[in-house]
């Protein structure tokens, strides 16, 4: 490599370098006046995607205006972490049983979804609730039937 070639490269590098620096600064300046894209969390709340897994909750069906839980206990039996307890009730003898209380201990739930898959009445789904922080471990135990009443 002769000297004049090296010098040419040196000058060329300075000019191409300065050009790319100016282009870069133009890009950041343009971005500075674009609208912000972040969600201001406590002020604005994002809506979760349909596949988000919050704690499980009962679906409200149109025919009964309530859940279809029959308190069969399959979810409680299939749960690998043993966090579900279902309490059923019959109004009169010979009638169908229906779910009265449905406790889950969310602090131990691994959100595997086996209860949703196994439910014969297809009355369970994942909620889009994401603010699931508690002050005490007993606050993590929730009755999803009670939450259903609150949602109605």
């Amino acid at each position, binding site marked *: 490599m002769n000297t004049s070639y090296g010098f040419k490269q*040196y000058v060329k590098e*300075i000019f191409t370098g300065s050009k790319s*620096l100016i282009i*870069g*600064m133009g*890009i*950041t*300046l343009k*971005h*500075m*006046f*674009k*609208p*912000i*894209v*972040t969600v*201001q969390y406590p002020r604005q709340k994002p809506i979760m995607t349909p596949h988000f897994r919050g704690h499980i909750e009962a679906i409200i069906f149109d025919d009964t205006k309530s859940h279809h839980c029959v308190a069969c206990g399959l979810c409680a039996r299939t749960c690998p972490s043993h966090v579900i307890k279902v309490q059923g009730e019959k109004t009169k003898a010979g009638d169908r049983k229906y779910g009265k209380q449905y406790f889950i201990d969310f602090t131990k739930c691994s959100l595997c979804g086996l209860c949703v898959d196994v439910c014969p009445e297809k009355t369970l789904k994942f909620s889009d609730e994401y603010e699931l922080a508690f002050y005490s471990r007993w606050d993590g135990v929730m009755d999803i039937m009670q939450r259903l009443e609150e949602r109605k």
Partner: protein
Amino acid sequence: MNMTQLPIIKDIYGFLGPDLLVGVVGLLLVLIFVPLNSAFLVWVERKVAGHIQLRPGPMEVGPHGILQSLIDAVKLMCKEMITPDLADKPLFWMAPCIVVIPAIVCFVVIPFSPVMQIRELNVGILLIFAFSSISGLSIMMGGWASNNKYSLIGAVRAVAQSIAYEIPLLLSTMSVIIMSNSFKMSQIVSDQSTVWNFILQPVAAIIFIICSTAETNRAPFDLVEAESELVSGFHTEYTGMRDALFFMAEYTAMFIASSMAVVLFFGGWHGPFFSGIVWFVLKAYFLVFVTVWIRWTFPRLRFDQLMNFAWKVLIPISLLNLLVTAIVIKVL
């Protein structure tokens, strides 16, 4: 600093002489201005960074988060100041005290407007260069005294960097000084009443801005406190208000470097419609904004790139620029 506007103070303290009065009042104003300015610049920095990254930046304290850095200062004052066991105690204590000296002293000679200058010195520019080198000393002291490998590496880098970048900085300043034939800051500004030096000396101006960015240890030349390599460089071991003093010195150094660039290249207080101080402050804050903008655009240089850039690019170009300036001045 007009004496006739302060008749009562003149009656009481007149026997001390106008120079002393101007000095005392001016220094008090500087002592008020320096912390407020750095709090404001921290907020500006965070806001600009946020908007460049498409997020809003601080929003909670005050309208658009403008009081955020004041609250942070209160927090830092309340924090415990930890001294490491194996630190060199006197030096460790002294470094943050020394780092604020240039931040305050350099304001003495900056001409904000024809009358707003605390002290007119014939060697104003030399004074600023001399005192800004003290910040390098305090970085070295802080890095050495912390007895921490990251601090020490940061300090070593600071020394190498400031030696390399002071040469082109002085050379580019020299070409302006040759043109106006004076080290007086007000003289240099009044020479630019018709044409700014930026138009006559664009190369020197750009080199000056690059080198002052490097001298104030700002990105992309922030190898001194490279977060991803050196925790936070020379002030890794500093906590609470001592850390805040280093921060204050950094942001004040930014403002002083921008003021120097305004004085040398951007016509100082000259400008239409408004009075001198307004123009000076506007120009200085615009240059500060440019430094912040540069920081959030470019990635950090590697150390060999940093040294190559200084010795192989900036110094030859600034020498050539000085030579051409000298010849042109002599011939014309």
